[in-house]
Protein backbone atom coordinates (compact mmCIF):
# COMPACT_ATOMS: atom_id res chain seq x y z
CA UNK A 1 0.00 0.00 0.00
CA UNK A 2 2.85 2.31 0.99
CA UNK A 3 4.62 1.37 -2.21
CA UNK A 4 1.55 2.30 -4.30
CA UNK A 5 1.25 5.66 -2.56
CA UNK A 6 4.91 6.35 -3.19
CA UNK A 7 4.58 5.51 -6.89
CA UNK A 8 1.50 7.69 -7.13
CA UNK A 9 3.53 10.58 -5.67
CA UNK A 10 6.21 10.05 -8.31
CA UNK A 11 3.62 9.97 -11.04
CA UNK A 12 2.18 13.26 -9.77
CA UNK A 13 5.66 14.79 -9.86
CA UNK A 14 6.04 13.63 -13.45
CA UNK A 15 2.75 15.22 -14.47
CA UNK A 16 3.91 18.50 -12.89
CA UNK A 17 7.28 18.42 -14.67
CA UNK A 18 6.02 17.49 -18.13
CA UNK A 19 4.48 20.85 -19.04
CA UNK A 20 7.79 22.53 -18.15
CA UNK A 21 9.46 20.55 -20.93
CA UNK A 22 6.61 21.16 -23.35
CA UNK A 23 6.35 24.90 -22.75
CA UNK A 24 6.97 27.30 -25.60
CA UNK A 25 9.99 29.50 -25.16
CA UNK A 26 9.00 31.91 -27.92
CA UNK A 27 5.27 32.30 -28.28
CA UNK A 28 4.04 35.87 -28.48
CA UNK A 29 1.31 37.39 -30.60
CA UNK A 30 1.26 36.43 -34.25
CA UNK A 31 3.42 33.33 -33.69
CA UNK A 32 2.46 30.21 -35.61
CA UNK A 33 4.11 27.10 -37.02
CA UNK A 34 3.17 25.18 -40.14
CA UNK A 35 4.88 22.00 -41.26
CA UNK A 36 4.60 20.95 -44.89
CA UNK A 37 6.51 17.67 -45.19
CA UNK A 38 10.16 18.64 -44.79
CA UNK A 39 9.33 22.34 -45.19
CA UNK A 40 8.36 24.56 -42.29
CA UNK A 41 6.98 28.05 -41.87
CA UNK A 42 7.54 29.51 -38.44
CA UNK A 43 6.00 32.91 -37.99
CA UNK A 44 8.00 34.37 -35.14
CA UNK A 45 6.33 37.78 -35.01
CA UNK A 46 4.17 40.06 -37.13
CA UNK A 47 7.22 41.04 -39.18
CA UNK A 48 9.54 38.06 -39.09
CA UNK A 49 8.86 34.64 -40.56
CA UNK A 50 11.44 31.89 -40.53
CA UNK A 51 11.14 29.16 -43.17
CA UNK A 52 13.09 25.94 -43.65
CA UNK A 53 13.43 24.87 -47.26
CA UNK A 54 13.72 21.35 -48.64
CA UNK A 55 17.44 21.24 -47.85
CA UNK A 56 16.86 22.24 -44.23
CA UNK A 57 18.23 25.76 -44.82
CA UNK A 58 16.72 28.55 -42.78
CA UNK A 59 15.55 31.67 -44.59
CA UNK A 60 14.29 34.76 -42.83
CA UNK A 61 11.42 36.62 -44.47
CA UNK A 62 11.14 40.29 -43.53
CA UNK A 63 8.98 43.06 -44.99
CA UNK A 64 10.48 45.44 -47.51
CA UNK A 65 11.93 48.59 -46.04
CA UNK A 66 12.77 47.09 -42.65
CA UNK A 67 16.38 46.87 -41.44
CA UNK A 68 18.36 43.65 -41.91
CA UNK A 69 17.93 41.20 -39.03
CA UNK A 70 21.07 40.85 -36.91
CA UNK A 71 23.39 37.91 -37.31
CA UNK A 72 21.78 36.56 -40.50
CA UNK A 73 23.75 36.19 -43.71
CA UNK A 74 22.35 38.55 -46.38
CA UNK A 75 21.67 35.67 -48.80
CA UNK A 76 19.41 34.07 -46.19
CA UNK A 77 17.20 37.17 -45.90
CA UNK A 78 14.25 37.48 -48.29
CA UNK A 79 12.32 40.72 -48.59
CA UNK A 80 8.58 40.11 -48.87
CA UNK A 81 6.42 40.27 -50.79
CA UNK A 82 8.90 38.98 -53.35
CA UNK A 83 8.44 40.75 -56.68
CA UNK A 84 10.85 38.94 -59.02
CA UNK A 85 11.31 35.16 -59.04
CA UNK A 86 13.29 32.73 -61.18
CA UNK A 87 11.96 29.17 -60.99
CA UNK A 88 13.50 25.89 -62.08
CA UNK A 89 10.56 23.56 -61.61
CA UNK A 90 7.18 23.45 -63.31
CA UNK A 91 5.63 22.59 -59.96
CA UNK A 92 6.97 25.83 -58.45
CA UNK A 93 5.51 27.76 -61.38
CA UNK A 94 2.16 26.01 -60.97
CA UNK A 95 2.16 26.79 -57.26
CA UNK A 96 2.76 30.48 -57.97
CA UNK A 97 -0.16 30.30 -60.38
CA UNK A 98 -2.30 28.81 -57.61
CA UNK A 99 -1.31 31.77 -55.42
CA UNK A 100 -2.30 34.17 -58.22
CA UNK A 101 1.12 35.84 -58.47
CA UNK A 102 2.60 34.14 -61.52
CA UNK A 103 2.10 36.95 -64.02
CA UNK A 104 3.53 39.63 -61.75
CA UNK A 105 6.56 37.86 -60.29
CA UNK A 106 7.99 35.24 -62.66
CA UNK A 107 11.05 36.58 -64.52
CA UNK A 108 13.05 33.48 -65.40
CA UNK A 109 12.60 29.77 -66.17
CA UNK A 110 14.81 26.88 -67.23
CA UNK A 111 12.44 25.40 -69.81
CA UNK A 112 12.27 26.95 -73.31
CA UNK A 113 9.09 28.68 -74.47
CA UNK A 114 7.93 25.91 -76.81
CA UNK A 115 7.86 23.39 -73.96
CA UNK A 116 5.48 25.40 -71.81
CA UNK A 117 1.74 24.74 -71.62
CA UNK A 118 1.03 27.48 -69.08
CA UNK A 119 -0.44 30.46 -70.94
CA UNK A 120 0.95 33.03 -68.50
CA UNK A 121 4.49 31.74 -69.03
CA UNK A 122 4.21 31.51 -72.83
CA UNK A 123 2.82 35.04 -73.02
CA UNK A 124 5.41 36.36 -70.58
CA UNK A 125 8.22 34.84 -72.63
CA UNK A 126 6.79 36.23 -75.84
CA UNK A 127 6.56 39.66 -74.26
CA UNK A 128 10.15 39.37 -73.02
CA UNK A 129 9.11 39.69 -69.40
CA UNK A 130 10.16 36.11 -68.62
CA UNK A 131 13.57 34.94 -69.80
CA UNK A 132 14.78 31.45 -70.63
CA UNK A 133 17.83 31.17 -68.38
CA UNK A 134 19.24 28.10 -70.09
CA UNK A 135 18.63 24.48 -69.17
CA UNK A 136 19.07 23.60 -65.51
CA UNK A 137 22.40 21.93 -66.21
CA UNK A 138 23.83 24.99 -67.97
CA UNK A 139 22.36 28.16 -66.50
CA UNK A 140 23.34 31.43 -68.12
CA UNK A 141 24.26 33.38 -64.98
CA UNK A 142 24.70 36.61 -66.91
CA UNK A 143 21.11 36.33 -68.10
CA UNK A 144 20.03 35.43 -64.59
CA UNK A 145 21.70 38.53 -63.19
CA UNK A 146 20.09 40.72 -65.83
CA UNK A 147 16.65 39.47 -64.77
CA UNK A 148 17.39 40.69 -61.22
CA UNK A 149 15.45 38.01 -59.38
CA UNK A 150 14.92 38.55 -55.67
CA UNK A 151 14.47 34.82 -55.16
CA UNK A 152 15.37 31.65 -57.04
CA UNK A 153 13.23 28.54 -56.52
CA UNK A 154 15.25 25.47 -57.43
CA UNK A 155 15.88 21.81 -56.77
CA UNK A 156 19.57 22.12 -57.68
CA UNK A 157 21.75 22.54 -54.58
CA UNK A 158 24.89 23.05 -56.64
CA UNK A 159 23.69 26.48 -57.75
CA UNK A 160 23.64 27.81 -54.16
CA UNK A 161 27.31 28.95 -53.95
CA UNK A 162 26.99 30.90 -57.23
CA UNK A 163 23.74 32.51 -56.09
CA UNK A 164 25.38 33.40 -52.76
CA UNK A 165 28.13 35.15 -54.72
CA UNK A 166 25.50 37.02 -56.74
CA UNK A 167 23.67 37.93 -53.51
CA UNK A 168 20.43 36.25 -54.63
CA UNK A 169 18.58 34.22 -51.98
CA UNK A 170 17.30 30.84 -53.07
CA UNK A 171 14.91 28.25 -51.68
CA UNK A 172 15.28 24.54 -52.40
CA UNK A 173 11.81 23.25 -53.25
CA UNK A 174 12.57 19.54 -53.51
CA UNK A 175 13.06 17.18 -50.59
CA UNK A 176 15.10 14.04 -49.95
CA UNK A 177 11.90 12.02 -49.42
CA UNK A 178 8.91 12.14 -51.71
CA UNK A 179 6.13 14.57 -50.81
CA UNK A 180 3.22 12.83 -49.15
CA UNK A 181 -0.33 13.75 -50.16
CA UNK A 182 -0.68 16.21 -47.31
CA UNK A 183 2.62 17.94 -48.19
CA UNK A 184 1.67 18.07 -51.86
CA UNK A 185 -1.62 19.75 -50.96
CA UNK A 186 0.01 22.12 -48.47
CA UNK A 187 3.13 23.07 -50.47
CA UNK A 188 1.30 26.21 -51.49
CA UNK A 189 1.33 27.21 -47.81
CA UNK A 190 5.13 27.04 -47.83
CA UNK A 191 5.44 29.46 -50.77
CA UNK A 192 2.60 31.72 -49.57
CA UNK A 193 4.60 33.80 -47.03
CA UNK A 194 7.13 34.72 -49.74
CA UNK A 195 4.30 36.54 -51.52
CA UNK A 196 2.11 37.31 -48.49
CA UNK A 197 -0.72 35.24 -49.97
CA UNK A 198 -1.83 33.20 -46.99
CA UNK A 199 -5.53 33.52 -47.80
CA UNK A 200 -5.04 32.28 -51.35
CA UNK A 201 -2.96 29.36 -50.09
CA UNK A 202 -5.58 28.37 -47.53
CA UNK A 203 -8.31 28.63 -50.17
CA UNK A 204 -6.32 26.36 -52.51
CA UNK A 205 -5.76 23.82 -49.76
CA UNK A 206 -9.44 23.87 -48.79
CA UNK A 207 -10.45 23.33 -52.41
CA UNK A 208 -8.16 20.31 -52.80
CA UNK A 209 -9.14 18.97 -49.41
CA UNK A 210 -12.83 19.15 -50.33
CA UNK A 211 -12.05 17.24 -53.52
CA UNK A 212 -10.18 14.60 -51.56
CA UNK A 213 -13.09 14.19 -49.17
CA UNK A 214 -15.43 13.80 -52.14
CA UNK A 215 -13.14 11.16 -53.65
CA UNK A 216 -13.10 9.17 -50.42
CA UNK A 217 -16.86 9.35 -50.17
CA UNK A 218 -17.43 8.42 -53.79
CA UNK A 219 -15.03 5.49 -53.82
CA UNK A 220 -15.86 4.21 -50.33
CA UNK A 221 -18.14 1.47 -51.67
CA UNK A 222 -16.45 1.05 -55.02
CA UNK A 223 -16.28 -2.34 -56.70
CA UNK A 224 -13.23 -4.60 -56.86
CA UNK A 225 -9.98 -3.09 -55.57
CA UNK A 226 -7.66 -2.48 -58.52
CA UNK A 227 -3.94 -3.12 -58.10
CA UNK A 228 -1.79 -0.24 -59.27
CA UNK A 229 1.87 0.38 -60.12
CA UNK A 230 3.48 3.70 -61.10
CA UNK A 231 6.98 3.90 -62.60
CA UNK A 232 9.09 2.83 -65.53
CA UNK A 233 12.05 0.81 -66.75
CA UNK A 234 14.83 2.77 -68.43
CA UNK A 235 17.48 0.55 -69.96
CA UNK A 236 19.08 -1.03 -66.88
CA UNK A 237 17.38 1.12 -64.26
CA UNK A 238 13.88 1.00 -62.79
CA UNK A 239 12.26 3.99 -61.13
CA UNK A 240 8.92 4.03 -59.30
CA UNK A 241 6.86 6.25 -57.07
CA UNK A 242 7.33 5.00 -53.50
CA UNK A 243 4.44 4.24 -51.14
CA UNK A 244 5.11 7.43 -49.18
CA UNK A 245 4.66 9.58 -52.30
CA UNK A 246 1.36 11.40 -52.80
CA UNK A 247 0.29 9.12 -55.65
CA UNK A 248 0.83 6.03 -53.49
CA UNK A 249 -1.25 7.53 -50.71
CA UNK A 250 -3.97 8.66 -53.09
CA UNK A 251 -4.30 5.20 -54.60
CA UNK A 252 -4.74 3.79 -51.11
CA UNK A 253 -7.32 6.42 -50.17
CA UNK A 254 -9.32 5.67 -53.30
CA UNK A 255 -9.95 2.07 -52.28
CA UNK A 256 -7.17 0.71 -54.44
CA UNK A 257 -4.03 -1.27 -53.77
CA UNK A 258 -0.71 0.42 -54.50
CA UNK A 259 1.74 -2.43 -55.02
CA UNK A 260 4.82 -0.34 -54.13
CA UNK A 261 3.36 0.73 -50.78
CA UNK A 262 6.32 -0.89 -49.03
CA UNK A 263 8.88 1.14 -51.00
CA UNK A 264 9.96 4.25 -49.07
CA UNK A 265 12.11 7.17 -50.11
CA UNK A 266 12.54 9.86 -52.69
CA UNK A 267 10.17 10.48 -55.57
CA UNK A 268 11.15 8.48 -58.63
CA UNK A 269 13.15 6.03 -56.54
CA UNK A 270 15.22 3.25 -58.05
CA UNK A 271 14.25 -0.35 -57.31
CA UNK A 272 15.37 -3.73 -58.61
CA UNK A 273 13.91 -4.80 -61.94
CA UNK A 274 12.79 -8.11 -60.38
CA UNK A 275 10.71 -6.22 -57.81
CA UNK A 276 9.06 -4.19 -60.55
CA UNK A 277 8.27 -7.24 -62.65
CA UNK A 278 6.98 -9.18 -59.63
CA UNK A 279 4.45 -6.44 -58.84
CA UNK A 280 3.81 -5.89 -62.55
CA UNK A 281 2.55 -9.45 -62.89
CA UNK A 282 -0.13 -8.72 -60.28
CA UNK A 283 -1.12 -5.21 -61.32
CA UNK A 284 -4.34 -4.20 -63.10
CA UNK A 285 -3.40 -0.59 -63.82
CA UNK A 286 -0.01 0.80 -64.77
CA UNK A 287 0.94 4.49 -64.84
CA UNK A 288 4.08 5.11 -66.88
CA UNK A 289 6.32 8.17 -66.55
CA UNK A 290 6.79 8.27 -70.32
CA UNK A 291 4.78 10.54 -72.54
CA UNK A 292 3.94 10.67 -76.22
CA UNK A 293 6.98 12.88 -76.70
CA UNK A 294 9.23 10.01 -75.62
CA UNK A 295 7.59 7.67 -78.11
CA UNK A 296 4.91 6.07 -75.95
CA UNK A 297 1.70 6.02 -77.97
CA UNK A 298 0.45 2.49 -77.29
CA UNK A 299 1.09 -0.62 -75.23
CA UNK A 300 2.92 -2.06 -78.22
CA UNK A 301 5.23 0.95 -78.46
CA UNK A 302 5.94 0.73 -74.73
CA UNK A 303 6.81 -2.95 -75.10
CA UNK A 304 9.07 -2.11 -78.01
CA UNK A 305 10.90 0.50 -75.96
CA UNK A 306 11.54 -2.05 -73.25
CA UNK A 307 10.72 -5.69 -73.98
CA UNK A 308 10.77 -6.55 -70.26
CA UNK A 309 7.62 -4.47 -69.85
CA UNK A 310 5.76 -6.70 -72.29
CA UNK A 311 5.51 -9.32 -69.54
CA UNK A 312 3.63 -7.25 -67.00
CA UNK A 313 -0.10 -7.83 -66.64
CA UNK A 314 -1.39 -4.32 -67.47
CA UNK A 315 0.26 -4.56 -70.90
CA UNK A 316 -1.22 -7.98 -71.55
CA UNK A 317 -4.73 -7.63 -70.14
CA UNK A 318 -4.95 -4.51 -67.97
CA UNK A 319 -4.90 -0.76 -68.49
CA UNK A 320 -1.89 1.51 -69.06
CA UNK A 321 -1.93 5.30 -68.66
CA UNK A 322 0.62 7.84 -69.83
CA UNK A 323 0.66 11.47 -68.65
CA UNK A 324 -0.19 14.09 -71.22
CA UNK A 325 2.57 16.67 -71.81
CA UNK A 326 0.87 19.41 -69.77
CA UNK A 327 0.33 17.15 -66.74
CA UNK A 328 3.62 18.04 -65.02
CA UNK A 329 2.86 21.77 -65.38
CA UNK A 330 -0.66 21.54 -63.96
CA UNK A 331 0.03 21.50 -60.22
CA UNK A 332 -2.40 24.39 -59.76
CA UNK A 333 -5.17 21.99 -60.86
CA UNK A 334 -4.28 19.38 -58.24
CA UNK A 335 -7.95 18.86 -57.34
CA UNK A 336 -8.73 17.92 -60.95
CA UNK A 337 -5.69 15.63 -61.12
CA UNK A 338 -6.71 13.80 -57.95
CA UNK A 339 -10.25 13.36 -59.29
CA UNK A 340 -8.97 12.07 -62.60
CA UNK A 341 -6.74 9.47 -60.93
CA UNK A 342 -9.71 8.35 -58.81
CA UNK A 343 -11.83 8.12 -61.97
CA UNK A 344 -9.16 5.98 -63.64
CA UNK A 345 -9.03 3.65 -60.64
CA UNK A 346 -12.81 3.40 -60.33
CA UNK A 347 -14.46 4.28 -63.65
CA UNK A 348 -17.71 2.80 -62.30
CA UNK A 349 -17.88 5.69 -59.78
CA UNK A 350 -17.29 8.36 -62.43
CA UNK A 351 -19.38 7.41 -65.48
CA UNK A 352 -18.58 9.45 -68.59
CA UNK A 353 -15.54 11.10 -67.01
CA UNK A 354 -13.45 13.00 -69.52
CA UNK A 355 -9.70 12.68 -68.99
CA UNK A 356 -7.55 15.81 -69.24
CA UNK A 357 -4.19 14.80 -67.75
CA UNK A 358 -3.70 11.12 -68.64
CA UNK A 359 -4.26 9.07 -71.74
CA UNK A 360 -5.16 5.40 -71.74
CA UNK A 361 -2.81 3.68 -74.15
CA UNK A 362 -4.43 1.61 -76.89
CA UNK A 363 -3.19 -1.89 -77.59
CA UNK A 364 -1.49 -0.77 -80.77
CA UNK A 365 -0.79 2.48 -82.59
CA UNK A 366 -3.46 3.63 -85.03
CA UNK A 367 -2.31 2.83 -88.58
CA UNK A 368 -2.19 6.51 -89.63
CA UNK A 369 0.46 7.22 -86.98
CA UNK A 370 2.74 4.73 -88.59
CA UNK A 371 2.88 2.37 -85.62
CA UNK A 372 3.45 -1.34 -85.92
CA UNK A 373 0.31 -3.22 -85.04
Amino acid at each position, binding site marked *: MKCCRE*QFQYLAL*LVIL*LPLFACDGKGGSGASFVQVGDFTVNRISEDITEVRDGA*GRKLILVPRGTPDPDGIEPCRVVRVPVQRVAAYGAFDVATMKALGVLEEVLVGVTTPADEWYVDEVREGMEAGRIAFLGYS*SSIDFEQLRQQQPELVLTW*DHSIIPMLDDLGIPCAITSTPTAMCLNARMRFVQFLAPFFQKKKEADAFFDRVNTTLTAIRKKTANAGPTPKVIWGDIYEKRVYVEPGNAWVGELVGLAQSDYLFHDVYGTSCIEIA*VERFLYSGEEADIYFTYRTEKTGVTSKASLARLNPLLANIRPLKSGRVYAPLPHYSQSGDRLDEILTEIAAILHPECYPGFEQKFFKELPETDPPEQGGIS
Partner: protein
Amino acid sequence: MKTLFKTIWQKICSIHLTVALCLMITADSAWGYFCLNRHADLFEPLNDIGLVEWIATFGRHNLSHTLWLMLLLVLLFLLGLNTFACTTDRVLGLVSARSRMGARRFFFRLAPHVMHYAVLIILSGYLGTYLFARVLDSRTLVPGGSMTLPGTAATITFDAFDPIYYEGDALPAFENRVLMPRARLTLTRGDDVSTAVLAYNRPVRFEGYGIFLKNFNPTMRSGGMSGRTRIDLSLRRDPGVRLYIPGMFLFTVGLVMYLVERVFYKKNKKETL
Protein backbone atom coordinates in the same frame (compact mmCIF):
# COMPACT_ATOMS: atom_id res chain seq x y z
CA MET B 1 13.88 21.77 7.45
CA LYS B 2 16.49 19.09 7.97
CA THR B 3 13.76 16.46 8.27
CA LEU B 4 12.10 17.70 5.09
CA PHE B 5 15.38 17.52 3.18
CA LYS B 6 15.99 14.04 4.56
CA THR B 7 12.51 12.90 3.50
CA ILE B 8 12.95 14.27 0.00
CA TRP B 9 16.40 12.73 -0.24
CA GLN B 10 15.05 9.34 0.87
CA LYS B 11 12.23 9.54 -1.66
CA ILE B 12 14.67 10.32 -4.44
CA CYS B 13 16.95 7.50 -3.29
CA SER B 14 14.13 4.98 -3.28
CA ILE B 15 14.62 1.76 -5.22
CA HIS B 16 10.85 1.84 -5.87
CA LEU B 17 11.44 5.01 -7.85
CA THR B 18 14.23 3.30 -9.81
CA VAL B 19 12.02 0.34 -10.69
CA ALA B 20 9.03 2.54 -11.56
CA LEU B 21 11.19 4.79 -13.74
CA CYS B 22 12.81 1.86 -15.54
CA LEU B 23 9.40 0.35 -16.27
CA MET B 24 8.06 3.69 -17.48
CA ILE B 25 11.13 4.26 -19.68
CA THR B 26 10.65 0.80 -21.21
CA ALA B 27 6.97 1.47 -21.91
CA ASP B 28 7.72 4.95 -23.23
CA SER B 29 10.48 3.67 -25.52
CA ALA B 30 8.10 1.05 -26.92
CA TRP B 31 5.60 3.84 -27.60
CA GLY B 32 8.42 5.83 -29.20
CA TYR B 33 9.20 2.95 -31.54
CA PHE B 34 5.72 3.14 -33.04
CA CYS B 35 5.80 6.95 -33.19
CA LEU B 36 9.16 6.93 -34.97
CA ASN B 37 7.96 4.43 -37.53
CA ARG B 38 7.67 6.43 -40.77
CA HIS B 39 7.77 9.72 -38.85
CA ALA B 40 11.53 10.04 -38.70
CA ASP B 41 11.21 13.35 -40.58
CA LEU B 42 9.75 14.91 -37.44
CA PHE B 43 12.84 14.07 -35.43
CA GLU B 44 15.57 14.77 -37.99
CA PRO B 45 15.48 18.57 -37.41
CA LEU B 46 16.38 17.89 -33.77
CA ASN B 47 19.99 17.58 -34.93
CA ASP B 48 19.90 20.99 -36.59
CA ILE B 49 17.74 23.29 -34.52
CA GLY B 50 18.30 22.20 -30.93
CA LEU B 51 15.93 20.82 -28.34
CA VAL B 52 14.22 24.00 -27.14
CA GLU B 53 13.33 25.20 -30.63
CA TRP B 54 12.35 21.68 -31.68
CA ILE B 55 9.94 21.34 -28.76
CA ALA B 56 8.48 24.77 -29.52
CA THR B 57 7.90 23.89 -33.19
CA PHE B 58 7.85 20.27 -34.34
CA GLY B 59 7.31 18.89 -30.85
CA ARG B 60 4.30 20.99 -29.87
CA HIS B 61 2.58 20.72 -33.22
CA ASN B 62 2.83 16.95 -33.51
CA LEU B 63 2.21 15.93 -29.93
CA SER B 64 0.68 12.58 -30.84
CA HIS B 65 4.03 11.56 -32.36
CA THR B 66 6.45 13.52 -30.15
CA LEU B 67 5.03 13.40 -26.64
CA TRP B 68 6.88 10.17 -25.93
CA LEU B 69 10.22 11.94 -26.44
CA MET B 70 9.34 14.76 -24.08
CA LEU B 71 8.19 12.20 -21.55
CA LEU B 72 11.42 10.28 -22.08
CA LEU B 73 13.43 13.41 -21.28
CA VAL B 74 11.50 13.90 -18.06
CA LEU B 75 11.92 10.24 -17.13
CA LEU B 76 15.64 10.32 -17.90
CA PHE B 77 16.00 13.48 -15.85
CA LEU B 78 14.28 11.78 -12.92
CA LEU B 79 16.35 8.62 -13.40
CA GLY B 80 19.47 10.79 -13.42
CA LEU B 81 18.38 12.43 -10.19
CA ASN B 82 17.57 9.05 -8.68
CA THR B 83 20.93 7.60 -9.78
CA PHE B 84 22.83 10.60 -8.41
CA ALA B 85 21.06 10.40 -5.05
CA CYS B 86 21.41 6.60 -4.75
CA THR B 87 25.06 6.64 -5.72
CA THR B 88 25.92 9.57 -3.49
CA ASP B 89 24.09 7.88 -0.62
CA ARG B 90 26.16 4.73 -1.12
CA VAL B 91 29.40 6.67 -1.51
CA LEU B 92 28.73 8.51 1.74
CA GLY B 93 28.10 5.12 3.40
CA LEU B 94 31.36 3.79 2.01
CA VAL B 95 33.25 6.86 3.21
CA SER B 96 31.93 6.44 6.73
CA ALA B 97 32.91 2.75 6.67
CA ARG B 98 36.29 3.47 5.20
CA SER B 99 38.16 2.84 8.44
CA ARG B 100 36.91 -0.76 8.42
CA MET B 101 38.45 -1.53 5.00
CA GLY B 102 41.85 -0.84 3.51
CA ALA B 103 42.43 2.13 1.20
CA ARG B 104 42.83 -0.12 -1.82
CA ARG B 105 39.65 -2.05 -1.01
CA PHE B 106 37.80 1.23 -0.52
CA PHE B 107 39.08 2.50 -3.88
CA PHE B 108 37.86 -0.52 -5.81
CA ARG B 109 34.50 -0.57 -4.00
CA LEU B 110 33.89 2.81 -5.61
CA ALA B 111 33.86 1.21 -9.10
CA PRO B 112 30.07 0.96 -9.64
CA HIS B 113 29.63 4.50 -8.38
CA VAL B 114 32.30 5.81 -10.75
CA MET B 115 30.34 4.18 -13.58
CA HIS B 116 27.09 5.71 -12.35
CA TYR B 117 28.62 9.19 -12.18
CA ALA B 118 30.12 8.61 -15.64
CA VAL B 119 26.68 7.77 -17.05
CA LEU B 120 25.31 10.97 -15.53
CA ILE B 121 28.13 12.97 -17.14
CA ILE B 122 27.47 11.30 -20.51
CA LEU B 123 23.73 12.03 -20.26
CA SER B 124 24.47 15.65 -19.29
CA GLY B 125 26.78 15.88 -22.30
CA TYR B 126 24.06 14.72 -24.67
CA LEU B 127 21.57 17.09 -23.07
CA GLY B 128 24.16 19.87 -23.49
CA THR B 129 24.47 18.94 -27.15
CA TYR B 130 20.75 19.22 -27.74
CA LEU B 131 20.47 22.42 -25.72
CA PHE B 132 23.58 24.39 -26.60
CA ALA B 133 25.12 23.02 -29.83
CA ARG B 134 25.54 25.66 -32.51
CA VAL B 135 24.63 24.14 -35.83
CA LEU B 136 25.13 25.76 -39.20
CA ASP B 137 22.47 24.20 -41.39
CA SER B 138 23.19 22.82 -44.84
CA ARG B 139 26.14 24.57 -46.58
CA THR B 140 26.85 23.64 -50.17
CA LEU B 141 30.30 23.69 -51.71
CA VAL B 142 31.30 23.04 -55.31
CA PRO B 143 34.88 22.11 -56.30
CA GLY B 144 37.16 25.07 -55.71
CA GLY B 145 34.59 26.75 -53.48
CA SER B 146 35.35 27.72 -49.91
CA MET B 147 33.64 29.00 -46.79
CA THR B 148 34.78 30.79 -43.66
CA LEU B 149 33.87 29.33 -40.31
CA PRO B 150 31.76 31.83 -38.38
CA GLY B 151 33.61 33.64 -35.61
CA THR B 152 37.01 32.56 -36.96
CA ALA B 153 39.36 33.44 -39.79
CA ALA B 154 39.61 29.78 -40.73
CA THR B 155 38.41 28.58 -44.13
CA ILE B 156 37.44 25.24 -45.64
CA THR B 157 38.04 24.70 -49.35
CA PHE B 158 36.49 21.81 -51.27
CA ASP B 159 39.29 20.61 -53.55
CA ALA B 160 37.88 17.51 -55.21
CA PHE B 161 35.31 14.76 -54.98
CA ASP B 162 37.01 11.41 -54.91
CA PRO B 163 34.40 8.71 -54.29
CA ILE B 164 34.76 4.94 -54.25
CA TYR B 165 32.39 3.29 -56.74
CA TYR B 166 30.84 -0.16 -56.73
CA GLU B 167 33.10 -2.19 -58.98
CA GLY B 168 31.47 -5.62 -58.76
CA ASP B 169 28.92 -7.09 -61.13
CA ALA B 170 26.83 -9.16 -58.72
CA LEU B 171 24.37 -6.32 -58.09
CA PRO B 172 23.44 -4.66 -61.39
CA ALA B 173 21.44 -1.95 -59.59
CA PHE B 174 24.63 -0.81 -57.85
CA GLU B 175 26.64 -0.62 -61.04
CA ASN B 176 28.60 2.66 -61.16
CA ARG B 177 27.04 3.82 -57.90
CA VAL B 178 29.04 5.69 -55.27
CA LEU B 179 29.69 3.37 -52.35
CA MET B 180 31.74 5.79 -50.28
CA PRO B 181 31.65 9.51 -51.04
CA ARG B 182 34.94 11.19 -50.17
CA ALA B 183 35.61 14.90 -50.35
CA ARG B 184 39.14 16.27 -50.23
CA LEU B 185 39.28 19.47 -48.20
CA THR B 186 41.94 22.07 -47.54
CA LEU B 187 41.73 23.60 -44.08
CA THR B 188 43.39 27.01 -43.73
CA ARG B 189 44.05 28.86 -40.50
CA GLY B 190 46.31 31.83 -41.17
CA ASP B 191 49.55 30.39 -42.50
CA ASP B 192 48.67 26.95 -41.25
CA VAL B 193 47.34 24.86 -44.14
CA SER B 194 46.32 21.21 -43.85
CA THR B 195 44.28 18.72 -45.84
CA ALA B 196 41.55 16.33 -44.78
CA VAL B 197 39.25 13.73 -46.28
CA LEU B 198 35.58 14.00 -45.39
CA ALA B 199 33.19 11.06 -45.73
CA TYR B 200 29.98 9.73 -44.20
CA ASN B 201 30.68 8.66 -40.61
CA ARG B 202 34.09 10.29 -40.95
CA PRO B 203 33.66 13.91 -39.90
CA VAL B 204 36.50 16.39 -39.85
CA ARG B 205 37.25 18.40 -36.69
CA PHE B 206 38.59 21.89 -37.23
CA GLU B 207 38.68 25.03 -35.08
CA GLY B 208 36.23 23.56 -32.57
CA TYR B 209 33.73 22.66 -35.30
CA GLY B 210 32.68 19.21 -36.35
CA ILE B 211 32.26 19.13 -40.14
CA PHE B 212 29.83 16.45 -41.35
CA LEU B 213 28.99 15.34 -44.88
CA LYS B 214 25.22 15.59 -45.29
CA ASN B 215 24.69 14.96 -48.99
CA PHE B 216 26.61 14.88 -52.26
CA ASN B 217 26.32 14.74 -56.01
CA PRO B 218 26.86 12.94 -58.34
CA THR B 219 25.68 9.66 -56.85
CA MET B 220 26.70 7.70 -59.93
CA ARG B 221 29.75 7.68 -62.14
CA SER B 222 27.66 8.85 -65.08
CA GLY B 223 25.97 11.65 -63.10
CA GLY B 224 22.60 11.94 -61.37
CA MET B 225 19.73 14.35 -61.95
CA SER B 226 22.30 17.12 -62.03
CA GLY B 227 25.76 16.14 -63.13
CA ARG B 228 27.35 19.00 -61.21
CA THR B 229 29.61 18.00 -58.37
CA ARG B 230 28.72 19.31 -54.95
CA ILE B 231 28.83 18.45 -51.26
CA ASP B 232 26.38 19.58 -48.59
CA LEU B 233 27.94 20.09 -45.20
CA SER B 234 26.57 20.42 -41.72
CA LEU B 235 28.82 22.19 -39.21
CA ARG B 236 28.43 21.87 -35.47
CA ARG B 237 30.12 23.51 -32.52
CA ASP B 238 29.14 21.16 -29.75
CA PRO B 239 29.91 21.89 -26.08
CA GLY B 240 28.44 18.51 -25.11
CA VAL B 241 31.50 16.75 -26.53
CA ARG B 242 33.55 18.21 -23.65
CA LEU B 243 31.34 16.30 -21.26
CA TYR B 244 30.53 13.01 -22.87
CA ILE B 245 34.03 12.11 -24.04
CA PRO B 246 35.47 12.47 -20.49
CA GLY B 247 32.29 10.70 -19.31
CA MET B 248 33.05 7.74 -21.55
CA PHE B 249 36.65 7.71 -20.33
CA LEU B 250 35.46 7.76 -16.71
CA PHE B 251 33.03 4.93 -17.42
CA THR B 252 35.90 2.85 -18.83
CA VAL B 253 37.98 3.58 -15.71
CA GLY B 254 35.04 2.51 -13.53
CA LEU B 255 34.62 -0.67 -15.56
CA VAL B 256 38.31 -1.56 -15.20
CA MET B 257 38.12 -0.89 -11.43
CA TYR B 258 35.05 -3.12 -11.21
CA LEU B 259 36.77 -5.94 -13.13
CA VAL B 260 39.85 -5.70 -10.91
CA GLU B 261 37.65 -5.85 -7.84
CA ARG B 262 35.68 -8.82 -9.16
CA VAL B 263 38.75 -10.78 -10.30
CA PHE B 264 41.16 -10.16 -7.43
CA TYR B 265 39.20 -9.25 -4.33
CA LYS B 266 36.35 -11.75 -4.72
CA LYS B 267 38.94 -14.43 -5.51
CA ASN B 268 40.94 -13.54 -2.40
CA LYS B 269 37.77 -13.60 -0.35
CA LYS B 270 36.96 -17.14 -1.56
CA GLU B 271 40.50 -18.30 -0.80
CA THR B 272 40.27 -16.79 2.70
CA LEU B 273 37.03 -18.65 3.32
